[in-house]
């Protein structure tokens, strides 16, 4: 495969590319699906794909194929050059130089090679049984368990040539509790790891079960302004998306980020520190190098509430006259974008129980279902699995309360971060408590 990737670069050069880059992925995956309280289907795939990126007179071209033969790679090279000739010139297009990449440990488990379809089916069943045996009212609507092994190959005309193996196991479960005709709020929980020994589907299943059971017998509430305690899933849905967008150098350069011109200034409460870290092997976003071959490192983007840096790939970095942060992301079927790897909010000092006990009146938000505008930070939607807290005590589950506000204001009103954190695929997130939020009762 490495040979084919090098061949692709040479072919592109032979057909008129000034610079060329080939990124290929091979994937072998077994997946088992749950549906309606039962295992549904087992699925496997063997897939390979190569994405060829070229620069011709400063113009970019991209073509991707999943037929990994010399003939189809040659045709792709010809097409990529043709597309580049139809594209506008942009002097910032370039590929990274060859640099030393130290391969990360802890992202490939040799034991994954013998973790076959049967083990995947058994693990999926374990997750289902764990949720169902918690309480007869639990209904698992769907879920899945996946075991994947992939290899990334990357070469470019600057002499860069890299490859890396990654194993990953990920799982999810969703559904509700049904009690004499009453259907609870939906919940979705997920987990993931690189290592067979760290697969813990039971923990995820129980968290799902407890969340839906807790949301039974919800009561309607009147509209009010108060505190909001976001669970990690809701932090992911509400806060992560907005921060990830705002620290993306591409969004800043395109004037669609609220963080433009704010480096060195406070953008959140001083208790908030956010980092992007592909070298943290707890997250499934861990890898040694990015989509362009730049070595990964830890990037602290917000430190004690102050915006420290943006995330860059080679293109956006060249535009701003800085170094790439190793955040070129994307698959082999798309040219590199700027993206987060593992999005991490640093743990706080309070326990969740203490954070609740300090609340006067507010709502614990398990999940948020709604719209978040990553540009201006406005959000509006429905609280899922919400619980009303009064005078430091959880009173009852609440019925479909709407919540609206602005994330940037909320980050400034952030007054608590839990020490407990949850790893959710490529995010590592705590609970966040935010004051002065508007809730509308149904």
């Amino acid at each position, binding site marked *: 495969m490495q040979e084919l990737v090098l061949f692709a670069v040479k072919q592109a050069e032979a057909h008129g590319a000034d610079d060329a880059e080939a990124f290929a992925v091979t994937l072998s995956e077994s997946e*088992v699906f749950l*549906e*309606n*309280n*039962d*295992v*549904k*289907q*087992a*699925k*496997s*795939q*063997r*897939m*390979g794909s190569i994405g060829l990126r070229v620069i011709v007179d400063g113009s*970019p071209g991209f073509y*991707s194929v*999943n*037929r990994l033969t010399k003939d189809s790679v040659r045709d792709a090279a010809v*097409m990529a050059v*043709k*597309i580049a000739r*139809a*594209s*506008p010139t*942009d002097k910032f297009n370039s590929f990274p130089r060859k640099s030393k990449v130290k391969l990360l440990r802890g992202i490939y488990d040799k034991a994954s090679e013998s973790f076959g*379809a*049967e083990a995947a089916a058994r693990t999926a069943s374990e997750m289902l049984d764990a949720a169902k045996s918690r309480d007869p009212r639990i*209904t*698992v*609507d*769907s879920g*899945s368990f996946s075991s994947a092994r992939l290899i990334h190959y990357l070469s470019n005309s600057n002499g860069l040539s890299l490859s890396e193996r990654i194993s990953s196991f990920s799982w999810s479960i969703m*559904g*509700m509790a049904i009690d004499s005709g009453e*259907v*609870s*709020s*939906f919940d979705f929980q997920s987990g993931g790891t690189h290592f067979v020994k760290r697969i813990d589907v039971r923990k995820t299943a129980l968290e799902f079960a407890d969340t839906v059971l807790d949301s039974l017998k919800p009561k309607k509430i009147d*509209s009010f302004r108060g505190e909001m305690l976001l669970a990690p899933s809701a932090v992911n849905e509400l806060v992560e998306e907005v921060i990830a967008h705002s620290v993306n150098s591409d969004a800043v350069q*395109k*004037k*669609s980020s*609220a963080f433009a011109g704010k480096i060195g200034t406070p953008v959140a409460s001083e208790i908030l520190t956010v980092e992007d870290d592909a070298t943290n092997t707890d997250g499934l976003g861990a890898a040694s190098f990015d989509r362009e071959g730049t070595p990964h490192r830890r990037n602290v983007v917000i430190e004690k509430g102050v915006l420290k840096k943006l995330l860059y790939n080679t293109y956006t970095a060249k535009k701003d006259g800085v170094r790439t942060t190793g955040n070129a992301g994307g698959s082999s*079927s798309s*040219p590199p974008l700027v993206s987060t790897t593992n999005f991490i909010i640093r743990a706080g000092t309070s326990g969740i129980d203490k954070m609740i006990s300090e609340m006067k009146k507010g709502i614990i938000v398990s999940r948020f*279902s*709604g*719209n978040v505008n990553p*540009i*201006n930070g406005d959000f*509006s939607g*429905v609280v*899922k699995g919400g619980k009303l807290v009064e005078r430091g005590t959880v009173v009852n589950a609440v019925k*479909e309360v*709407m919540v*609206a*506000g602005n994330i940037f204001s909320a980050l400034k009103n952030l007054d608590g971060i839990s020490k407990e954190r949850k790893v959710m695929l490529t995010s590592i997130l705590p609970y966040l408590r935010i004051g002065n939020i508007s*809730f*509308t009762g149904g």
Partner: protein
Amino acid sequence: MTEVNFVNGELQRMRVVENAGCGIRVLANGCWGFSSTSEMTADSLKESFTEATSAAQVLANSKKNRVKGLADSKMATGHFTLKANGKLSDISIDEKVKIVREAEMAARKHSKIIKTASCTYREILDHKLIVNSDGAEVEICDSKPEFSVVAVARKGVESATAHEGVGITGGWQDLFGTRSHLDFASKAADRAERLLEAKHAKGEKTTIILDPGMVGLLSHEAIGHTVEADFVLSGSVVKNKIGERVASELVTLVDSGSQEMTGNAAGTIMVDDEGVIAGRTAIIENGILKSFLHNRESALIFGTAPTGNARAFQYNDEPLIRMRNTFVEPRSDKLNEMIQETRHGYLVKGARNGQADANGEFMFGAEEAYLIENGELGMLMKGDSISGNAFEVLRSVDMVGDSFQYDIGTGYCGKYQPAKVDGGGPHLRCTAVIGGLQ
């Protein structure tokens, strides 16, 4: 797949992706196994077949409810080409780049207040062969282009975003024959400019007139998902409700895979991925729940005929129960009468993202909300979200408009895999909660 995207005068993304492969699904011992490969050789296909079969056998140890069988259906045979005026493959990449670049620039130059604009053209060309052991032998050629413009207006820290786009089944002429790419740009920019000045609505439960796009979203997200037979079997809110009144008698709600109402809806498929002809399914007829959406497996369980809703996005996706074009049929009310007969409420327009749960609770975004006071259309407010219980909302429908439009064709439905879908209807008047600030 071809995609061209310009943002603020620069090429953000241009790519062509060519994927080929074969997915093999087997039903053995009452269990499904699926395996796919991107290597189209006899040896690799044999290996995939072996993998699919052993995957099914692996499940036999843990599966409680075995698949009893598949409902009979006349299996499609022959060649199906979905109608397209102006083959997309005949349009040069230079032309596609040109229209995207021009439209993005037109949106940005529309006024000084537009600080950011983006324009995207995307086309999916599908060439599919489906063969199964029950006699399906189909070749399908399909082309689905889409075009959209996003404009962001900004003044100080305030900003507002507007979207304008179209997604269809068809060709280049179908996409731009009656509407120029520049018209999308000016509409998006103009709306962003007006939304910047708009205030938030006050959150309340009130009378809402939904535009065709919002009706499409309601039909798809809030009703459609709850009647997908796999969700019904998992305990969705409509379980055991066939034959019951679930909506106002003014509501007839349909899901169709063929060219229904107007041509070119984005979710048109003609034949589903189990080889079943994809026709019209009335989900709700005059307020009565008539049918769920089925594949062959669920149809057998419910003792009914498959409805042609089994869809797979790519060769490496297994067919799932998915919607196609989901809509409410028009009746006789004029929009201006609907407004005149509203004492207090909102006309909401511009469907944005939506989500719904199996208990019928939904929430979806609207780009614009116009306040209605004493029968007159007033101020434009920021859109916020609309929420409620889908069936309560449908029971509250008391006026149904007379003109029809599909308007969610640029969207993709995500249910484990993407799917191109569409939805629409006439204007509907109902009661729902509009989000906002207290």
